């Protein structure tokens, strides 16, 4: 068990965003999280990497309850984690290449030449090798997303959290990103949590799919079981409200 959430609740002021979340994710597993806008998916990811602290409950990453750690201890845990933000969150004062190199420069003892090599390779993987010297504000939304992805995988973390990695991409690029996520799982045994609205992508990449509905996990099953779920809320979501 690499990630384990026990009885997690999260409220902002009086508003309960997540209610009694229990969730275990195995090493090497890819979990997709689906759910309507505002149901708490991004908040759930932020809890897993300590950007938000739970109002109550425990968040275990490997063998530490990160809800109890201070910032310094948390940073050690985060060295094994990467995150792709919903709105990319690129450092806009740095070039694309510097963005991707950031974690390596801060935390590794690699030489500039080695870092440059990794950066080139990762940018190549996301199809942006010609854009290394661009500034983030010179890129389209989808390109930013891919830089953000390259930045998250540059450090080759054990756990990667993706917040809607394929939204805003064209179908071909979205397909490539899906393949990339699957590739990191198969070749590098990365554990991934992927928030997505794209059901085809969820079916393709995920070992299990969790559906959040109004802050609660109402289904946690493999793709087949989700497709054939008898829960009306699940059926409505995966069919986009069109009853088939």
């Amino acid at each position, binding site marked *: 068990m690499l990630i384990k959430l026990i009885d997690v609740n999260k409220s902002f002021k009086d508003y309960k965003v997540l209610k009694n979340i229990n969730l275990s994710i195995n090493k090497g597993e890819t979990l997709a999280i689906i759910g309507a806008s505002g149901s708490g998916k991004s908040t759930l990811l932020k809890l897993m990497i300590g950007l938000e602290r739970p109002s109550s409950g425990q968040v275990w990453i490997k063998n530490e309850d990160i809800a109890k750690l201070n910032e310094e201890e948390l940073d050690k845990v985060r*060295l094994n984690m990467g995150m792709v933000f919903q709105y990319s969150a*690129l450092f806009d004062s740095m070039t694309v290449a510097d963005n991707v190199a950031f974690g390596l420069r801060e935390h590794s003892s690699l030489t500039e030449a080695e870092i440059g090599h990794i950066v080139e390779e990762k940018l190549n993987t996301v199809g942006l090798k010609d854009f290394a010297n661009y500034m983030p504000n010179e890129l389209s939304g989808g390109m930013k997303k891919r830089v953000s992805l390259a930045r998250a995988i540059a450090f080759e973390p054990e756990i990667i959290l993706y917040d809607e990695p394929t939204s805003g991409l064209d179908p071909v690029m979205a397909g490539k990103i899906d393949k990339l996520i699957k590739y990191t799982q198969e070749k590098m045994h990365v554990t991934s949590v992927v928030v997505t609205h794209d059901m085809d992508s969820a079916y393709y990449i995920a070992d299990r799919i969790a559906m959040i509905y109004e802050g609660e996990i109402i289904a946690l099953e493999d793709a087949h079981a989700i497709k054939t779920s008898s829960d009306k809320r699940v059926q409505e979501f995966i069919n986009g409200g069109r009853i088939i």
Partner: protein
Amino acid sequence: MFILEAVGSFVLRILETWGGFIILLFQTLKQCKRIPRMRYVLQQMAHLGVDTLPIVMLTMLFTGMVVTLQTVTEFIKFGAQSTIGGVVTIAVGRELGPVLVGVVAAGRVGAAITAELSTMKVTEQIDALEVMATNPIRYLVVPRLIACMVMLPLLVVFGDVIGSFGGWVIANYYDVSSFMYMQSINSFVVIHDFTGGLIKAVVFGSIIAIIGCYYGLNAGNGAEGVGKAATKSVVDAIMAIFFFNCFLSLLLYR
């Protein structure tokens, strides 16, 4: 009752923000135990210095000129033209230099720091730093604090010289000879008039950096949050500069 309530909430608000500044200051000092990256510090210093030097020069030139303009005729009336250089230089070195440079820097540098950090905050770049196991205080606040603490005294040095020069221009116009002006500086001004001002500048530099960073890191959401944060940062920094200036003058020049 209404007045008491208003006073109470006003005081509470002040205490809350000042508590915030002080906590940030200590968190920043704590992060200094790991040697900060010189590259980031130098970047900030270049940024702050280059941005602010022209305005500082202009401000101090005109200030030196106008102070002399207002005093020189009175001094001549009392036959005290031989003291004018010293008086202007002391006024500039002790008070006008550090305070005006501080105020200009609060408007220029403090606002820029707040705008930059609050934009980073609302676009989740600060979160991205944290996710990459990089403490935002160590990465963002420490270099800015050091840069401000070093650059403000430097700017004050330039400002003092230009201010005194502005005084000389006007004094010359009123037939106070250059020799007399220099002579009076030599006989009246002691080194402490100058170093005291530099000590003030170091304090003002840290005030600008800490308040600027505080409002940046705690900005509300959206473009509105960025704008509000920048305004508050400038106002609070200027207020703090005047307050600490009074306090420091008592301490340094009593």
